[in-house]
């Protein structure tokens, strides 16, 4: 008898974020990449009170909560800024993607998706038409930076997943 989900609400900001939560690797980590973008609602407006969690699939050797010291963690968390933006700094995952969860006021359960850093042969990408596939592909944007926007609703809605 599974426990039902409820919204994270608007007031998690004093509780869930933690120091360097978005930094899976420290600044200057060799080969590190940044994934950044905005979360948008069905009217195309930024969502300023979302919480994103990124998981690469590998725990690594750095704390998931305590970011002391060097190394690589597989988990990060980032609350969106007033302009709806978020960012993660990570070591490139061994898979072509990282898993992403988005929580927000107005989401009674999180949406989950994947950020693909490369358009590699992949069962999920291969099952989608080009327009839908494009919503899962992070776009290179300068040196070691990838752009990935999350559109919760509408024409260009991000492909969300259920396991």
């Amino acid at each position: 008898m599974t426990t039902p989900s409820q919204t994270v609400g608007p007031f998690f900001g004093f509780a869930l974020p933690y120091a360097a939560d978005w930094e899976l690797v420290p600044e200057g980590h060799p080969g590190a990449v940044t994934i950044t973008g905005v979360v948008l609602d069905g009217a195309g407006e930024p969502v300023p009170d979302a919480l994103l969690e990124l998981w690469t699939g590998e725990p690594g050797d750095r704390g998931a909560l305590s970011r002391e010291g060097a190394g690589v963690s597989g988990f990060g968390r980032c609350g969106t800024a007033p302009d709806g933006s978020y960012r993660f700094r990570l070591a490139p995952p061994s898979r072509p993607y990282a898993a992403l969860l988005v929580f927000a006021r107005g989401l009674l359960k999180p949406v989950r998706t994947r950020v693909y850093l490369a358009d590699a042969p992949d069962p999920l990408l291969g099952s989608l038409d080009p327009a839908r596939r494009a919503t899962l592909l992070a776009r290179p944007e300068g040196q070691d930076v990838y752009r990935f926007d999350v559109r919760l609703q509408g024409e260009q809605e991000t492909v969300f997943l259920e396991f």
Partner: protein
Amino acid sequence: MTHPPYLHPDYASTVLRAPSRQPLEMKEDPEAAELTGPVFGHGEVDALDADLTTGHAGEPLGERIIVTGRVLDAAGRPIPGTLVEVWQANSAGRYAHQRDQHPAPLDPNFTGAGRCLTDDEGRYRFVTIKPGAYPWRNHPNAWRPAHIHFSVFGTAFTQRLVTQMYFPGDPLFAFDPIFRSIPDPAARERLVAAFDLDVTEPEWALGYRWDIVLGQTPMEDA
């Protein structure tokens, strides 16, 4: 159905945020990153973080309570060593959050955030104060029933759960679109803690018991 739908118009914020398409059902993939999840070490969580009534100059105002229970998987097996995070309003119904504009007093001795790792038997235990009900602007005269927010990880990213624990007998249940977004009334009741005299400590604090059951991981046999 256990979980609420994305779109529940009585909860106004869902209207522009609910995805319009059904989520894509993933094919079985034993290599999927989502079948594993982050591990949190004991060195990362301070034992004092489970007591929300300490850490300030004085004691918070309100009814002191103990909230405890187990984190279980879908087969009823305890999940040890998993991270549980909680946050809540103070006894007057005000969050220590800059965007909370409810004109109820802040309590200098209460922040309302805590966390712990479950023990070997999957148990968590928090000491806190009972949060107050508070108004919100969803509809005229809208009030949230008293609740504590819970965030739980489990062993796989697919099990990740954020929810709210409620208190038994709250008269606001009938009017709360968030609680009522869960279609099955029996499933709603699974968010309501039970008062427990065995958890209650004499001359000290009332006890509530609430178990959390995470979803099945996709590769698991039922």
